[in-house]
């Protein structure tokens, strides 16, 4: 699936953080992250108001402890569609 925006997703123990280029969105839940991504994209002015934007969030597996990575190599990726 093609995405208009690609973000890396991590969890710092308290919050999810989605980051890519100038967009940074933080939230305790993924729902909050999605809302903040929408705000950040709106503020960036890259996309016209009223447009529908597909956002890809790929979890950065480097944030999983090294000893655990040998068991599995993927956490999750997600796509969301936001209306600006």
């Amino acid at each position: 699936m093609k995405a208009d925006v690609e973000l890396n997703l991590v969890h710092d123990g308290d919050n999810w953080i989605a980051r890519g280029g100038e967009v940074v969105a933080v939230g305790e839940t993924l729902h909050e992250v999605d809302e903040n991504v929408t705000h950040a994209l709106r503020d960036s002015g890259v996309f016209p108001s009223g447009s529908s934007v597909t956002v890809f969030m790929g979890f950065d597996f480097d944030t999983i402890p090294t000893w655990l990575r040998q068991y599995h190599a993927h956490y999750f990726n997600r796509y969301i569609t936001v209306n600006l």
Partner: protein
Amino acid sequence: MATVNRKWTDGMLHTEDWWAVWLGLIMFFAGLLTIWGVDIVGWMTKTKTWEWGKLWSDPSFNKLLSAAHSKEGQTYAGLGGLGSLLVTYVVFTTLTCIGAYFQKLDVKKFFMGFTCIFFITWAAWIIGHEAHFKALKTGQSITQSEIYGDNVFCTTKVNKCSAQINKALKGMGIDVMAGQVPTKEQAAAAVDKSKNAIRMSWGWQLGGGFSYMLALAVGLIIGNFFKGFANFLREGAKPEWFIKTAIVYLGIKLGLMSMKATGFALELALAGAAATFVAYLLFWPIVYAMGRKIFKLRRDASAVLSSGISICGVSASIATAGAIRAKPILPIAVSMLIVVFAMIELVALPTFYAAVAPDQPIVNGAAMGMTVKTDGADAAAGAILDEMMVANHYRTTGETWEADWILSAAILTKIWIDVFIGVWAFVLALIWVYKVERKPDQQHVGASEIWFRFPKFVIGYFIAWLFYVAIAVWFPDAIKAASSGAGVVQSPMRKMMFMLTFVAIGVITDFAKLKGMGRLTVLYAIALFAVIAPIAYVVAWIFHHGMMPPLASG
């Protein structure tokens, strides 16, 4: 730089899963060259069964080790035991360090840790091959002890010893195959003439299983009593990488075994798939319901724990947590629990199954695959069970089951479980996104998630297996030449990777981590031993009962 799986090729250079495929296939193709008369794997060292009295009287590395060369690689014989061990060390250290570099491990620490683990492994392997621990009695000593005595042991495969003694008797004019019976003096003279038969006053007759248990014990002692040293080794202790590489090599073994018993191998694979599917449908809902109703766990914790206990341990708990978008700390905590419990299963279950059901080898192997979590612990438990049951059966009946079929049953069920993880995680992701979170118009779950969670080492395993089946079907004249190089890869190389796994899995297991896990530990223990193990055994019996390993030829 971040590691995000985006393209289908992502991970090919930096995950241990793919590196198991590369290490596996490098040696697989190297072994195949004997088809054209070239042996480039014959430097691999292999252990010999030795007796301490004889070693003491004339010490030599060549009594402990030798190069595993094929007929085409006679030049490697000149390396001797120590030389072949050093070449083995150099080759595998180089390959694994290259893999460690691409996996973004600390290569210096990996090199130091791997070097220590390598030599600890070989020390345990050599000690485990001392004849008093390992050697089995010869067939004659079991079935005709009144003539041959009950103290004749064999330092190679027992069928070979029996054949050597019978040949020596024939040279004396006594044809036992025609029903002639030697006198005690003639029998004693034949035993003396046999190259691999020795007399010993005692012997534990544990087969190769003793080396595995010794390696595991050494690893556990380091992991739990020498924690500073364990931390030093940790970067080089990669049991999942080692065992997945070994499983690719096992694909070669299964290919060779399939040449002789194609129907049985296929039946084993299909029965394993069916049993795994049925067990899946029972395990997960029961454990999930227990977590929610009895232990009052949150929905996400219960789902992650259910997958960890009932499917395939750590990888399933990570896959499930990712699928339901749980915070990463949850699968990390559950994984610590799984690794420790897998070790308890590995220590307890082989002995238990071998004692309780000595006449159900394949059922035991399949049940092991469905019960023991993590690939490393399952393969290790399967290997111990295989050695233990083959040796026990021989001791009690004088009949030799072909080795590695019980191990294959354990591995095949586990491989199907691994394959299903990606599909199950995808289903869970759909349920979570479209039912639990109820935002179907806003989120999408890519089908690529299945591929990213697919265990890649399985590809290497099936390539190796099917390649040899193809040789048997289309190029039957090449079987003998192909088996020559394959024998080196699937036997000493594979067993070395198993032995490395035993030491490494012990090193990373710290039982102290169970402290403070509270309800999760109690639920895990109850679910594992009261739900998973009994159901797995029943399901394994339904699909595998009546299946027996072929008898060893020779």
